[in-house]
């Protein structure tokens, strides 16, 4: 009985063992950088000979790190808002619309997700060279919007498909105008989908490297670009400190998401 854990006999230990090794393989590198960020060895010796906070000091002393983080947050926030708004309209069209070629349009909307980002990055870089958008906030936002939008559309149209439009009809029969019904009934009903889409869009922009490398200029760069350029010079422990803060952010977001899910199921 291969689908009954208690009846697997010796196989149970083999499977558990592989699972545990895989979990360690995924987890240890992350714990490793966290440890290094507090180690006092510039040459990243592990285990570190002593402990220090000086890499965090260096990180916060360099205004370029903070500035990059601020730029990242700003771009990610704008991308989040635009991606949810445009994604919501597109999803309404895809799920509720009545026009030919909806399936084709859906496939088209999702292609930026499938294509290697490198191709999009190089193509946009060339286009932005002509439009003078490289190194601008607008350029960053457009680039990240292109790759975030498919995820927003998938998430929101998924939520819309499970929502019965006759409830909207009921609201209209109660006297609401069609747009009022949409705002007061449909939007609250798919709020979890909108929320997930917002988080996805924010994180995609916040973590995005390849497009950002092309869009960046010496005066405007995001956090991943700053990490990237630093990494190419040397493996300084300052990056470990920056990475640790990013891991911390991930953990906080995961716990928040878990709490929201728990709150919703109650």
């Amino acid at each position, binding site marked *: 009985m*291969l*689908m009954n854990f208690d009846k697997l006999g010796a196989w149970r230990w083999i*499977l558990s063992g592989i699972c545990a090794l895989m979990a360690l393989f995924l987890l240890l590198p992350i714990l490793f950088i966290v440890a290094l960020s507090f180690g006092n060895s510039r040459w990243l010796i592990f285990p570190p000979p002593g402990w220090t906070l000086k890499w965090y000091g260096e990180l916060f002393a360099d205004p370029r790190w903070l500035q990059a983080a601020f730029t990242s947050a700003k771009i990610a926030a704008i991308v989040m808002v635009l991606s949810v708004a445009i994604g919501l309209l597109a999803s309404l069209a895809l799920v509720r619309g009545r026009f030919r070629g909806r399936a084709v349009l859906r496939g088209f909307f999702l292609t930026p997700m499938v294509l290697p980002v490198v191709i999009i990055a*190089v*193509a946009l870089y060339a286009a932005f060279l002509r439009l003078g958008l490289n190194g601008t906030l607008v350029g960053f936002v457009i680039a990240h919007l292109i790759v975030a939008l498919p995820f927003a559309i998938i998430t929101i149209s998924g939520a819309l498909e499970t929502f019965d439009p006759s409830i909207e009809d009921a609201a209209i029969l109660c006297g609401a105008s069609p747009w009022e019904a949409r705002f007061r009934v449909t939007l609250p009903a798919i709020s979890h989908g909108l929320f997930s889409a917002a988080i996805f869009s924010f994180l995609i922009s916040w973590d995005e490297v390849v497009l950002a490398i092309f869009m960046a200029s010496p005066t405007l760069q995001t956090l991943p670009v700053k990490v990237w350029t630093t990494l190419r010079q040397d493996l300084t422990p300052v990056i470990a400190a920056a990475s640790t803060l990013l891991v911390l952010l991930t953990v906080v977001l995961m716990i928040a998401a878990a709490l929201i899910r728990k709150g919703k199921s109650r």
Partner: protein
Amino acid sequence: MLSFLTPARRGSGLGMAMPALLLLLAFFVIPVAGLLSRSVTEPVAGLQNYETLLGSATYLRIFFNTFLVSGLVTLITALIAFPVAWALAIMPSRVAAVVFAIILLSMWTNLLARTYAWMVLLQQTGLVNRILMATGIIDQPVQLTNNLVGVTIGMVYIMLPFMILPLYGVIKKIDPAILQAAALCGATKGQALRRVLLPLATPGIASGALMVFVMSLGYFVTPSLLGGTANMMVAELIVQQVQSLLNWGMGGAAAFILLVVTLALYALQLRLFEGRAR
């Protein structure tokens, strides 16, 4: 599903798709088409860029590297992911939740942070080399970065969740009673695995494998940080041609080849798995 009260006018709803449509046309379709067209117009009109790409051992080596690494990464992740997904599907849910949390944590941790960890772990004086020397497996530090070994390790690390999660979905849906039936029919665990569980999990393995393979083909960050310039993959070639050499024709041609292979595999994926699901 259609609302009764909002009349089903033909073409209704198209307007709402416009912002997304225009955005993608202006900043996705036209730029990509522009890039591809430059492959046959620069420096002069013709197919000479493709001839150079497919005719020189240096460039063929890059394509070979790309397929080799993607294939290896796919194979290794599949071999690890199958037992893991299987275990996750039947484990006590509390234990499984812990493993899932680790998978998600690794997935959501910044890509550069994860790659940085492997750059440090795999360097000459890194932890991996020191452990291998301490256990007597090797006498001299081995080169693990700036070559395809490092790229493969780093990519397996990144791709594992993309294989485990879909495979888990497929295995979780298998009715345990089917495997109970196999046992009562007289099948030993090995026979039930080979003749029932593996065939039933194959759609998940195939779809996960295709996804990992396609993603690996166009990957840029990990290969360029862990692989070094001597062991380029296609994505790095495109960037190098465009950024360092300003050779838009060659860059466009390489991008076109990558795009065709990617879309072909994607279409295969849709044909194989979407059709069955409906």
